[in-house]
């Protein structure tokens, strides 16, 4: 019988090595596996390269890992100066690689799909292009971008079954499916547990083939920080 459910956070985090590249899903707090991030802090792996959408604000998620001094490098699409990540980058304590968000998503998707690299016009002629191979394709200047696999992917699902089939909730989908596919070890925290066959096959967004461990964490709804002035 295939059963990808683990019974404890320690079991979920077992074997994550120092120096790992860890993909962390979610957009703002929605679809972000906060319990697993806390579990990773507890587990103690150091010298990590973290790949996620942004450097975060404060409170939940990435700042806890950063404050614990576990992150060597951050790969993301933006960092706020007034954030834990921004301060550590400014102080030279964390290395930063800023990647256009679509390129970031595509590098992760490519890793899961076995595509080692791709050309894109995004970032051509900008600071992002420095040191990268440039090629004109179809009359457009393009730059070469490499796939970005994770030693580990941390994912949040709305519902999961014991095969690791996943369903997501609203905007909680975002990076979760592509990171699940790009992780050599994909660990999921799920709000709800489904019986095998209970999730309609058409509703399975991430099939269990991309998933290795699932932990049931009824974490509750995401909480937004006070919205930025728009």
């Amino acid at each position, binding site marked *: 019988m295939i059963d990808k459910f683990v019974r404890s956070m320690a079991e979920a985090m077992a074997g994550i090595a120092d120096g790992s590249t860890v993909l962390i899903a979610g*957009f*703002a707090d*929605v*679809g972000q596996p906060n319990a697993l991030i806390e579990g990773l802090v507890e587990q103690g792996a150091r010298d990590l390269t973290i790949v996620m959408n*942004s450097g975060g604000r404060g409170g939940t998620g990435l700042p806890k890992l950063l404050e614990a001094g576990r992150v060597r490098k951050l790969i993301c*699409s*933006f*960092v*706020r*100066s*007034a954030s834990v990540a*921004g301060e550590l*980058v*400014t102080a030279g304590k964390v290395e*930063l690689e*800023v*990647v*256009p*968000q*679509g*390129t970031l*998503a*595509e590098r*992760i*998707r490519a890793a899961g799909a076995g595509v080692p690299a791709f050309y*894109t*016009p*995004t*970032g*051509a*002629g*900008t*600071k*992002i292009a420095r040191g990268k191979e440039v090629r004109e394709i179809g009359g457009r200047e393009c730059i070469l971008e490499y796939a970005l696999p994770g030693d580990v992917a941390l994912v949040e699902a709305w519902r999961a079954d014991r095969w690791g089939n996943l369903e*997501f*909730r*609203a*905007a*909680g*989908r*975002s*990076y*979760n*499916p*592509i990171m699940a596919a790009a992780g050599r070890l994909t660990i999921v925290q799920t709000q709800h547990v489904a019986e095998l066959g209970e999730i309609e096959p058409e509703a399975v*967004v991430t099939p269990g083939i991309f998933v290795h461990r699932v932990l049931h964490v009824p974490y509750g*709804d*995401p*909480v*937004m*920080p006070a*919205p*930025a002035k*728009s």
Partner: protein
Amino acid sequence: MSESSAAAYQPLGRSAMAARVARDIPEGWYVNLGIGIPTLVSNHVPLSREVVFHSENGVIGVGPAPPPEAVNPWLINASSQHVTLRPGGSYIQHADSFAVVRGGHLDLCVLGAYQVAENGDLANWARSEDDTGPQIGGAMDLAVGARRVWAVMEHTTREGKPRLVHRCSYPLTAKAAVSRVYTNLAVLDVTPEGFVAREMIAGLSLAGLQARTGAPVRFEKQA
């Protein structure tokens, strides 16, 4: 800005700028709105005019903000604001969301900008080479991938320096990306011959607009 010129005309506020952009978006367009003033544009597109708004975090068919009692905590836009989903809307994963952007499927992207150059170059993610808060987000993908890119911005900096310029001094987001600029003073097209003002706010002369613009501007009513 001198008191005499301030008295002669009233620059548009943020909401009025957003409303002016909204007037030019026809029914049936698929549109992405950047952070800041662009986000306000959807407030000025009536629901009866079916424009489909896309948000980078994987939402197609973004609707208005919900009343506090009807918030779905799992439904936000790319500015992390709670939104609604219109009937016909859908959720997609992040690489698909950027396939929408990069694959040329958006009719329009409206972006904020620090600077726009007369050749359409866009600078909107960093204020200097070593900005400690780089804010690329999805802007580089949007600027390259959308079929049209319109910038909405204040015409000058707080110090009165032009933000419509000959060449951008801030780090570029994309080359030759912007086709139209909506400012608090004017609507301008970016043409092979440079900036062409299509309309100006009441009381502002072309000489007054030129004095606040860092590249030549000519005026020509839209055909």
